[in-house]
């Protein structure tokens, strides 16, 4: 085997390798921000994070702007503290609100950021003030049931009152 042919093939081989990695990085992984210098973090505290997991996307108006990089329990106040790692090119005002949403009825949960109106932006490491917790299906159903039962009780009471006053 001629040396130049071997060189050529090895060159092609390495080029294939580089192309594969580039393909994986760009087309498959979409190069999301990771804790390096072109990203910053925000803190958001929730009473209940439901099924939110580390690495869940952070979206604003449906566009992925970062990822949840850490979730821990604040043992003093017993709230969940989520660390959001956001791409440096997206900045949010100080009255931005964060909520935990679900993609579809049974899909994965993500953090949605809604931009506020204030001039000043959140700085790296700041806490998002306005948060709303995840919708937990059981609680939702529970609430619905109690309100439904209460409604029934009220109706029954009204009926009873009406019956009393009627004669």
């Amino acid at each position, binding site marked *: *085997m001629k*040396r130049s042919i*071997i*060189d050529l*093939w*090895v060159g*092609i*081989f*390495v080029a*294939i*390798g580089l192309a*594969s*990695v580039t*393909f*994986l*990085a760009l*087309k*498959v*992984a*979409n*190069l*999301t921000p*990771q804790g390096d210098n072109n990203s910053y973090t925000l803190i958001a505290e929730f009473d209940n994070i439901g099924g939110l997991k580390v*690495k869940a*996307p952070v979206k604003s108006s449906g566009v*992925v702007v970062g*990822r949840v990089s850490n979730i821990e329990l604040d043992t003093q106040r017993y709230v969940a503290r989520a660390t959001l790692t956001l791409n440096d090119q997206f900045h949010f005002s100080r009255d931005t609100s964060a909520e935990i949403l679900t993609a579809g009825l049974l899909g994965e949960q993500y953090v949605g950021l809604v931009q506020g109106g204030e001039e000043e932006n959140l700085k790296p490491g700041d806490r998002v003030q306005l948060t709303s917790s995840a919708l937990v299906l059981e609680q939702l159903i529970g609430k619905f049931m109690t309100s439904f039962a209460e409604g029934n009780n009220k109706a029954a009471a009204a009926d009873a009152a009406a019956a009393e006053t009627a004669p």
Partner: protein
Amino acid sequence: MMLDNLLAPLRHLGHSTINAIWKLGMMSRFLLAILAHSGQSLLRFQLTIREVYFAGVLSLIIIVVSGLFVGMVLGLQGYNTLSRFGSADALGALVALSLLRELGPVLAALLFASRSGSAMTAEIGLMKATEQLEAMSVMAVDPVARVVAPRFWAGVISMPILAALFNVMGIFGGYLVGVVMIGLDEGTFWSQMQNNVDLHFDVINGLIKSLFFGIAVTLIAVFEGFDATPTAAGVSSATTRTVVTSALVILALDFVLTAFMF
């Protein structure tokens, strides 16, 4: 006599344990020797390039074909299962994640061990059997530096490239089945993948895995070749040992690495 029969399995166990530990120690020493004698294979890079050709380039076809088929099977099976739960849209993510994290590095390494690892063992073993290694050493050329180290580095370089290619081909196979054959929406396929695959967490970790596999497989291959009994039977059993040991080490190492990474 009775006691002897009872103790035989224990003695056998002890013997194989001691052998395994001894081998592990020899292999570590061999790795150190390779690293210490790597200067030449890196300075005279032509030596290593030649071996990349034999270890890597010649493995291209088997990697491409296997990757494609594994991806296609993943696409079919994944679709069957996911569609039962009404989430066939997640097929792209399923295919990409299974390949990037596990199947790509592991299967590429298994193929590499049986295609290139066994060839390396046979080649070095045969060189030993025909006194070529000894001749080299008598010519004041260190066989570890001249024969073993270039092959080792070639394996370490080739493995991640092959694994990355395997991943790409697998994803392409999944795409063929999911989008072209079954008719899922192309945009959903890719966007589901992109939303769920992370460059560092999935892609890079998978490649790091394959780098470890490359080191392990190539080390086993060159060690078995160098350590082979210099006869026809010795070389053939060394070749078998390379494939078997590599497979076991790849799977065990995969478990350990997965536990650390994910």
